[in-house]
């Protein structure tokens, strides 16, 4: 009997260990990604091919269209959209920049969009390290700027964000479904 009890204890300990093992995080359905300005800066850096200093970067998660109508459907017009998925989208500048004539200090910020059919209001907010836009607080806005919506002939399946060079700095291009938006930063 003693032997049996010992066996049972060992057995239960074994199962307890299995259960107690903290679950490791699964892979996100909307994977995270990162874009820099200058574009591909990290690759250029290790290849010694940098021609202009690091200016900005965006860290965002990439939901998929998955057959849905995105703008005006999944993302309601007139509502603040989280501009990604999961953790709030983070935009970081390594120097002070201007957006829509307003100054934005260097550092980390969150970015959201108030989406309409023909224009988006881009919102830069100071509440970092947060989740989505569920507790978005306009009192913590740093600035807002409105940009026009461009309709595309092609469909972009996964939300994409990339910086491109402009004559006065860079544009953040946001593309998803059949919609494209360009947000100009000057520096």
């Amino acid at each position, binding site marked *: 009997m003693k032997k049996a009890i010992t066996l049972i204890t060992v057995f239960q300990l074994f199962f307890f260990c299995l259960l107690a093992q903290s679950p490791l995080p699964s892979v996100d359905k909307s994977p995270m990604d990162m874009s820099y300005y200058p574009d591909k800066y990290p690759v250029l850096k*290790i290849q010694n091919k940098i021609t202009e200093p690091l200016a900005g970067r965006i860290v965002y998660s990439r939901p998929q269209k998955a057959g849905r109508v995105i703008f005006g459907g999944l993302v309601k017009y007139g509502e603040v959209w989280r501009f990604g998925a999961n953790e709030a989208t983070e935009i970081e500048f390594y120097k002070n920049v201007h957006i829509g004539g307003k100054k934005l200090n260097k550092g980390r910020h969150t970015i959201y969009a108030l989406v309409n059919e023909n224009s988006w209001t881009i919102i830069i907010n100071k509440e970092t390290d947060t*989740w989505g836009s569920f507790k978005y607080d306009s009192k913590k806005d740093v600035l807002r700027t409105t940009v026009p919506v461009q309709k595309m002939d092609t469909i972009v399946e996964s939300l994409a964000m990339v910086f491109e060079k402009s004559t006065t700095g860079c544009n953040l291009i946001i593309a998803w479904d059949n919609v494209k938006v360009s947000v100009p930063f000057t520096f």
Partner: protein
Amino acid sequence: MRIFILLLLGSFFSFSCNQKKEKNNNSKSIVVNGDTILKIKPEKTINTYEPVDVSPMDMSYFPADYPKLKMDQPTMNPPIARVVYSRPHLQGRKIFHDVLKYGEPWRLGANESTELDFYRDVTIQNKKIKAGRYILYAIPEQDKWTIVLNSNIDSWGLHPDPSKDIARFIVSPTKISSSIEYFTMIFQQTTTGADLLIVWDNIEVKLPIVF
């Protein structure tokens, strides 16, 4: 003996119940039980703006799930640490030596260098580490891993530059019984701070952070 069998059955039942609960918790995601291969539909046309990475990026905070906690408690203290890394997956390979070789530096991820932010000063193996941003890489060996904190931030993971090393830490790898498909990093609370847990395939490594 009868008691033994009953208890044995009891153990099995409690185990399977817990398993079910875990599955339900994860039901929002495609991934069941934490770690099967993700079924992201390949894009029909090439994403001309930015193709989706094969090894997706992810982010872990300490306290764990800080961004979600902050949603409910906007006034809570800043986080302690955050790691941003990309998650390669085994796809039938073994970590040693299909993917990694003993003694060769490894980027601890994929694509962009793995980034570790400390929001306050911390201590690792009696070395003071200032708040700020670092990159991480490792030199894995059979019985020890060297974890390196380096200052060459915003770089690509290949070819780490040892002249920019800030500190090196020797830690012991442990073998785990299961195989984890996707490379995983999380923080786990300890009595003196938190461990940065580094897990892939059947290997687990802990970097103890004191704060």
